[in-house]
């Protein structure tokens, strides 16, 4: 009997713990420290009528990587929050947006499948706020066949920026990494330089290629360019390589969890030394500073859009919409802003259209016609346009961790990428930067 009692007690403790962990702390993660507080006007999304839209819904969709090791769902989540806000404010001239997103679980086969699904559903007028880590190339094949266009929130692999029917709002890992490199270059800290990346398709090698080309061109000594396996757990070799190479500065182009592990190993080996450590926008998350701890005070990150604490019409609206319409623990990061902005661009493109005639064709025309779109979240105007490459966002900001939170380090700077000549030329020749 005694034994049974003891067993029951042990089980009870276990159950209690499970129950505790299931109700994840609903703490004050919603508000961002140091950001201006919202006012009522911030929630006047779209038409801002304050009345719920009741017309026939407009179907919009997205494909994002939410499970399978990487979670980039903050982009479609914020897009959804914005659409909800628009629907509460008269919608698209009275018609609400019905938004859904599919999780590709880091599997390109699934990305292709989801893309094909939305492409074949002709009631889906556009893709907005996508954030796939793996499958832009296969998705674009489907979109192209079906005449469907995506205002992607977060593009990661190369194909997201070199596709006919996909245009991301973010700058992408390559641009973000080059931005960091060029920031250090301006500070005179870039020589010698070290880069760390992730070996996933069209991502790590693409970033490495950009860094190699740029350092060669700028005469910077690239002392290390390492791509690690996504399943790697032992970052000691990496850290030891960094220690040996003794660069002046270094950029990590990995998702936040992996970056955190690398930093933990570096801390354990006390490898910070005189090296200026930095990360691309993938670690630019309001909570990241707190996570990696005091040792990393002065850690630098790129931000592909405005800082999460920035003051500005769209920045304020993003925070207000997130607080009102999104989960309290939804991340407040660059990618959330990107999804939000993608949705906003989309709504603004649709509002002038004839409500009766909203179908894939008319919507695609309107989306393709977006040019010179200005927002305080962006450094330069955003555009779509018919082309085989879409990379409108190539000017970014820098942030630094001070007392556990990111603060602005440097304002908007255009990023130089040796392979971007065509894009720049097109921006000029087609006048894409002005409406």
């Amino acid at each position, binding site marked *: 009997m005694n034994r049974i009692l003891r067993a029951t007690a042990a*089980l009870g403790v276990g159950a209690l713990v499970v129950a505790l962990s299931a109700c994840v702390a609903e703490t004050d993660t919603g508000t961002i420290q140091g950001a201006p507080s919202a006012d009522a006007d911030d929630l006047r999304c779209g038409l801002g009528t304050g009345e719920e839209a009741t017309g026939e819904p407009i179907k919009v969709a997205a494909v994002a990587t939410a499970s399978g090791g990487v979670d980039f769902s903050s982009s479609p989540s914020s897009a959804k929050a914005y659409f909800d806000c628009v629907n509460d404010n008269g919608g698209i001239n009275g018609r609400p947006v019905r938004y859904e997103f599919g999780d590709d679980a880091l599997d390109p086969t699934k990305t292709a499948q989801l893309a094909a699904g939305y492409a074949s559903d002709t009631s889906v007028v556009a893709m907005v706020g996508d954030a796939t880590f793996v499958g832009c190339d296969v998705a674009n094949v489907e979109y192209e066949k079906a005449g469907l266009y995506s205002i992607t929130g977060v593009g990661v692999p190369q194909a997201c920026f070199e596709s006919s029917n996909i245009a991301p709002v973010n700058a992408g890992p390559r641009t973000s990494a080059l931005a960091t490199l060029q920031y250090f270059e301006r500070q005179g800290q870039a020589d010698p330089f070290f880069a760390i990346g992730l070996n996933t398709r069209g991502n790590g090698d693409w970033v490495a290629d950009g860094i190699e080309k740029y350092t060669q061109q700028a005469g910077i000594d690239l002392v290390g360019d390492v791509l690690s396996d996504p399943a*790697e*757990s032992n970052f000691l070799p990496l850290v030891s390589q960094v220690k040996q190479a003794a660069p002046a500065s270094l950029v990590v182009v990995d998702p936040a969890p992996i970056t955190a592990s690398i930093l933990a190993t570096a801390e354990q080996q006390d490898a910070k030394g005189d090296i200026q450590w930095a990360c691309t926008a993938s670690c630019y998350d309001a909570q990241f500073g707190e996570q990696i701890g005091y040792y990393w005070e002065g850690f630098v990150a790129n931000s592909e859009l405005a800082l999460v604490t920035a003051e500005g019409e769209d920045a304020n609206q993003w925070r207000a919409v997130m607080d009102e319409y999104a989960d309290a623990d939804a991340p407040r990061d660059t990618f959330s802003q990107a999804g939000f902005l993608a949705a906003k661009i989309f709504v603004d493109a649709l509002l002038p259209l004839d409500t009766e005639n909203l179908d894939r064709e008319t919507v695609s025309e309107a989306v393709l016609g977006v040019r010179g779109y200005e927002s305080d979240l962006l450094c330069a105007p955003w555009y779509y346009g018919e082309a085989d490459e879409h990379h409108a966002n190539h000017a970014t900001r820098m942030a630094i961790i001070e007392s556990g939170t990111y603060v602005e380090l440097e304002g908007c700077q255009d990023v130089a990428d040796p392979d971007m000549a065509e894009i720049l030329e097109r921006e000029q020749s087609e006048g894409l930067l002005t409406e």
Partner: protein
Amino acid sequence: MNLLPFVVAGLVIGSVYALSGVGVLVLYRTTGVLNFAHGAVGGMAALLVWQTVELRMQPPVAIALGIAAGAAIAFLFGLVAGPSLARVDQLRKAIATLGLALALLGVMLFVWNDKARTMRLETSRISFDVAGARVNVTQLVCLALALLVVVGTLLALRHTSMGTSMRALASDRELAAVVGTNVRLVENTAWAVSGAVAGISGILLADQTRLEPAFLTFLIIPELAAVVIGRFVSLWLTLVGGLAVGVGQSLVSAWPTVSAFSTAVPFVVATIVILVATRRRVVTVGVVRA
């Protein structure tokens, strides 16, 4: 290149593999169940510790709770599935634990997903230099604990009545029952002990590697490699095996040309050991009578 940090890191990870391996081995020898869910139980414990610390619980209490949770999960599985498992062959027993591993993995991913998480035990913040390599207290704890658990398990198996009963079950389950051993009680104890060991190793591994559900779950593969090197029998050889796998992995990773394959070291080692160990198998008469 200074290889010492790699040797140290390898020894540390290896000692946790060994620690896990001991947990797997005790359960296997007592119940015949090769627990593929050992890593998942550890992952669960580690994430619970992380979560409770997030909820402002004192770390020592949280760790104790995590270990208790590991023991409870394993015990519960043993309690519920044990009687059915006793009736099926060893292969099916192992496959059933694959199911448990998947279920636990699903729960972990559902509750915690894959967000950036690091768990730094307080002891990891205290570190010092040993002959050019940096060592922290957690790492010392790992090494000491592995030794301690091996020695402790050996002593317990020899000198306590529960340990004696466990050896009896491992030797001849039916005979043990016939001479009066309460088989179910011993098995349930083995599950709980092995679960607690899984919890401890999970927490240590999460501190030393990554706090990610899938990653921790599939650490069972190198842990099994340690057990395989121990030939499913010897605690000492399991300890040696774990250390060897850890150091091998770490040293391979130090060489840039082959470092991409360092994660494959445990697989290769275990496969070779299994193939060599079972090289001289012929059709046994036991099969004839089966």
